[in-house]
């Protein structure tokens, strides 16, 4: 049988949040608008809303993470959900238990939502296809494929600082090939109608047919930065240095590092983003990361509201499924 997008439920509503691919502009805008409403919650002294009261969210992290896991945890708490943090990196999966067996055990803990991170591309898709239909799945990063909540918080940040997407030139710099942040970011920018999305990096860090994602490719960072409205750096992973993709961090910084001089090629009011954690002196100079144009810390803050938005939207759609199942029973 031809497979369909598992993100939508039988009512054609977003039931899982796995990938930006396959979502339309209206859906992405709805998430951003909902997040906008939650930012005020985060500014109040009592930061909880009761939207997910009585619900259990399980963080299933098969790969190490502190920042993303904490952000999801905080978002769930602010929605009044109970949160389970399950460290799977050092647990049963190491003992040879299959992913499916692990899922079955976690299902029996009666969670309503799984937030998953896994080193395999497609893992979130796999989990969504195999969990009980009443469970909502959020992709917290799968291999090199997608990190859709990161992309939405990046879009939120851009919209807050730049308004409409239509006139924007966005440059993404560095390791596009191995980056799920880049893939999801590109998909979101293209769907939201950004004027131009540029990627810059050496060919060893570019995936095959990268143009097919809807981007223009630059080998020369200086040309890519000209007249940019948004500059996005990416974390260069240490393992790239051992795999003959780049010769050294020093040479990478020299050829693609974000320096104050390079930032001056972009528009004067350009913003500088980075998903963190930053490698200062590798992909970005400290004075740029901490500079006036940097919105890196705002990204982290907005991440809470955006994740609250995604959780509340799909949990709401999950309610419809759960009610339908109850009625059938």
């Amino acid at each position, binding site marked *: 049988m031809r*497979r369909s997008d598992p993100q939508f439920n039988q009512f054609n509503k977003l039931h899982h949040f796995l990938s930006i691919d396959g979502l339309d502009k209206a859906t992405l805008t709805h998430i951003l608008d909902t997040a906008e409403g939650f930012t005020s919650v985060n500014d109040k002294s009592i930061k909880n809303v009761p939207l997910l009261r009585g619900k259990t969210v399980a963080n299933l992290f098969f790969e190490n993470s502190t920042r993303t896991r904490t952000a999801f945890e905080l978002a769930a708490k602010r929605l009044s959900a109970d949160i389970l943090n399950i460290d799977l990196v050092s647990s049963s999966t190491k003992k040879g238990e*299959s992913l499916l067996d692990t899922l079955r055990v976690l299902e029996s803990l009666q969670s309503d939502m799984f937030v998953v991170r896994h080193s395999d591309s497609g893992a979130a898709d796999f989990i969504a296809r195999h969990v009980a239909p009443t469970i909502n799945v959020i992709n917290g990063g799968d291999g090199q*494929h997608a990190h859709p909540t990161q992309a939405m918080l990046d879009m939120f940040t851009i919209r807050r600082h730049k308004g409409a997407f239509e006139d924007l030139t966005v440059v993404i710099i560095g390791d596009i090939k191995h980056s799920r942040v880049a893939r999801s970011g590109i998909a979101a920018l293209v769907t939201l109608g950004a004027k131009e999305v540029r990627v810059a990096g050496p060919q060893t860090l570019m995936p095959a047919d990268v143009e097919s994602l809807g981007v223009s490719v630059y080998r020369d960072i200086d040309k890519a930065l000209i007249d940019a409205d948004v500059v996005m750096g990416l974390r260069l992973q240490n393992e790239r240095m051992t795999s003959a993709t780049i010769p050294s961090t020093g040479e990478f910084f020299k050829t693609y590092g974000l320096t104050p001089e390079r930032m001056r090629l972009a528009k004067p009011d350009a913003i500088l983003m980075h998903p963190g954690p930053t490698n200062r002196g590798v992909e970005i100079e400290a004075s740029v990361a901490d500079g006036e144009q940097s919105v890196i810390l705002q990204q982290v803050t907005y991440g809470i509201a955006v994740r609250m938005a995604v959780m509340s939207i799909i949990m709401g759609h999950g309610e419809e499924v759960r009610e339908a199942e109850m009625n059938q029973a």
Partner: protein
Amino acid sequence: MTHLRIDNARVIDPANKIDEQRTVFICDGVFSDQCNHDAQVIDAEGLIACPGFIDLYARLREPGFTRKGTIATESTAALKAGFTTVFCAPDTNPVIDSSATVELIKQKAVAANGARVSPIAAFTTGLEGQLLSELATLYDAGCLIAGHADHPVNDTGVLLSTMEYASSFNIPLMIRPFDPAIASGGCAHDGAIATRLGLPGIPVAAETVALARLIELCSSTGCHLHISRLSSARSVELVRSAKNKGLPITADVGIHHLYFTHEQIQHYDANFHSSVPFRSTEDRAALREAVRDGTLDAICSDHAPQDNDAKLAPFPSSAAGLSAFDAFAPLLFGLPDLLDMPLMNVLAKVTTGPASVVAPQNDNPTEVQTGLLDAGAYSLEVGAQADLVLIDPKAKADLSVENMVSLGKNSPLVGLTSLNELTGEDVALNAQVMHSIVAGVLKG
């Protein structure tokens, strides 16, 4: 021995370019021009009679991986595909690198009473790519060809001496061109789809670089080289040009690669995770053209049965391979329309084509042993060993899981009646093998 008379069949014999309505007689294991009157009679009205199909590459999984398949289950499933001879991959456990293992497989195959099983000898011990196997001994034990499964031979020196050694005994080598350093852990065609899905890619160069190396070694050693399971347009060009230069090279393609492209992996369907990746539409078009123009001599199943658990994992961690036997016949009979080729020429790709790959290259005709494929005279001619299939080309294929004979249910065609839903090409899945005859013996 049994005597058989097959009436009213449409007889297609690619070796002799015959396509006519006539009676086929089989006496004492060989085709004949008459029969005694107590012969068993099969009314083959509406059926096609042609030489039994030969599969140059299938994994039967035994010994070693009987959770995925056994010689009994898979050689029976092979009959359903129309194969009367199956060359089985040497990547078993133990590896097929000793005559003892060959003997074990042959005994199991005789007991199974399915298709004839012809083991492919591993040309290095343990498929480790270092030391030569006893190729002459393995040949005498019944291995008509030697290969290396999906295991790479990283040391070019080992490859060179293997080809020199094999050519000394006129043993053909079957090699899938694959450079693991270039593939670098990839699991899908390195193109737009893998990029979008974040799947590590296998560049075309992983195939072409290895292929260019093989062609050069073939040219310097004169070894008969069979290139196994091509996937790309560029490789087809390389093979075509090598053949034009007169090198002793033959080549094949897995049947699924004539139908599918990387488009099929869009939603991470692990049933399309194949060790030979499905590539672009252009690559598929080139493979189809190469079947038409003869650059590709044979079509194989590349059968890879898997147990259910092996496929129940995210795409990169799922086991590679497609179970091919149950859907092979309908896919094969879809090709004449799809490729605009006469049925006889399509059937040649699974009969005379593969036979010519393994046929003895020396002038001394080998004595026909019952149980061994008589590749040198693969036809319906009087006196030839009687390997025959009777196929109903119009019967709808039943591809339900319950009806699958292979232990591996990992076929993306399960439940389908047409390919339209998968590929958008209107290919109805028709054809059923009604009877199979191996060395004159009616099976099943």
